[in-house]
């Protein structure tokens, strides 16, 4: 059965069906991410004064990821243009670049997640708070039995507010050392995972959903670069349209990051 309007323009819409389809899908995606941005705004304005974190994320890594995604958006466009001008070799090159850049983005994101996963905040029985990255736990470390010790690379502060804004001169000047804590001195120990506070919750939700979009888009692009490119020989115009549609999705993913980066890393 012939599927209509995969290549030719539909008279009533003026576009081929897949293009209208992807724009409708992207419209729903705008509302999906819009809901999360709305949640972010409410969580942020609802936070107690001085209790919304600043400087918790590495701006350098966020910047590299911004540039990787911007470059990948460009290579995606150039891959489509290469198809349009019938230069399949260049299409292969540009799309291979897109896949590499996307994998680079995901690697950096994974590193950032891991960094948060091994970063602990420890409430001590003395009322102070130890904060730092996990160095080691003694073999007999058990928080329930209160045995063993844990070593963090970080510092001990008197007030949780001291940990909220890491851009203050005091926070920057703070000396980080190895701190060994007995389990018997620990009241509560928690890493900077999604349940740590509302900031990490919205951070992991938004960037996690975005990373899933990156992963999905990469799989589609890799398919079109590999086995899916067989369509080029049979129907190059239809293949070119597939590249355009996947490219539109990829640009949208870049568009979301353009707002995620300043909102989560810079403000």
């Amino acid at each position, binding site marked *: 059965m012939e599927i209509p309007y995969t290549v030719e323009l539909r008279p009533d819409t003026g*576009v081929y069906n897949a293009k209208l389809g992807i*724009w409708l899908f992207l419209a729903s995606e705008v*509302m999906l991410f819009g809901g999360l941005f709305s949640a972010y*705004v409410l969580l942020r304005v609802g936070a107690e004064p001085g209790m919304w974190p600043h400087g918790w994320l590495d701006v350098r890594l966020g910047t590299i990821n911004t*540039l990787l995604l911007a470059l990948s958006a460009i290579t995606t466009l150039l891959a489509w243009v290469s198809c349009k001008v*019938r230069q399949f070799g260049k299409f292969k090159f540009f799309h291979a670049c897109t896949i590499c850049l996307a994998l680079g983005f995901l690697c950096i994101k994974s590193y950032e997640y891991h960094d948060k996963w091994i970063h602990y905040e420890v409430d001590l029985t003395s009322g102070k708070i130890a904060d730092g990255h996990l160095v080691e736990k003694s073999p007999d470390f058990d928080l329930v039995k209160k045995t063993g010790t844990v070593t963090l690379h970080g510092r001990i502060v008197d007030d949780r507010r001291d940990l909220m804004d890491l851009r203050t001169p005091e926070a920057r000047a703070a000396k980080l050392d190895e701190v060994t804590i007995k389990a018997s001195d620990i009241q509560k120990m928690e890493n900077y995972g999604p349940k740590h506070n509302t900031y990490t919750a919205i951070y992991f939700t938004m960037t996690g959903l975005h990373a899933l979009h990156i992963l999905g888009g990469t799989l589609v692009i890799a398919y079109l670069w590999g086995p899916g490119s067989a369509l080029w020989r049979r129907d190059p115009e239809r293949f070119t349209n597939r590249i355009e549609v996947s490219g539109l999705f990829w640009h949208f993913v*870049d568009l979301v990051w353009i707002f995620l*980066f300043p909102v989560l890393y810079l403000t």
Partner: protein
Amino acid sequence: MSHHKSEPAHAAPAPSDPHTAMDSHAVDLPTYIRRCAVIFLVILCTTAAMIATSFAHFGEGWTLKVAIILAIAVVNAFLVAGYLMHLLSEKKMIYTVLSFTVFFFIGLMGLTVWATNNFPIGTVNH
């Protein structure tokens, strides 16, 4: 399928008119590469501007900083949507779809701003 055997490995028939055959976008690889280079440079500059604004001292509050940074982000978004997604030269049907999206998105954010600082009693500590 037999006609493919006589063609080069990845050759495909040339379109009758690559500029207008299936859509209205003018297509020329060197032109696009130049345009993309300019766009990337602008994105590079705007990203640097966002970071510089973020670390600049604008007094105590974050409101002005956030406003400036988001305004720069909007410029970036315009470049990506307008030029890379070709939204500046898209069909009326796509604009119609997006006009609904814009309407509902503004509504969503409007409700969010409207709800700001209007929390049910007992849900906040200040």
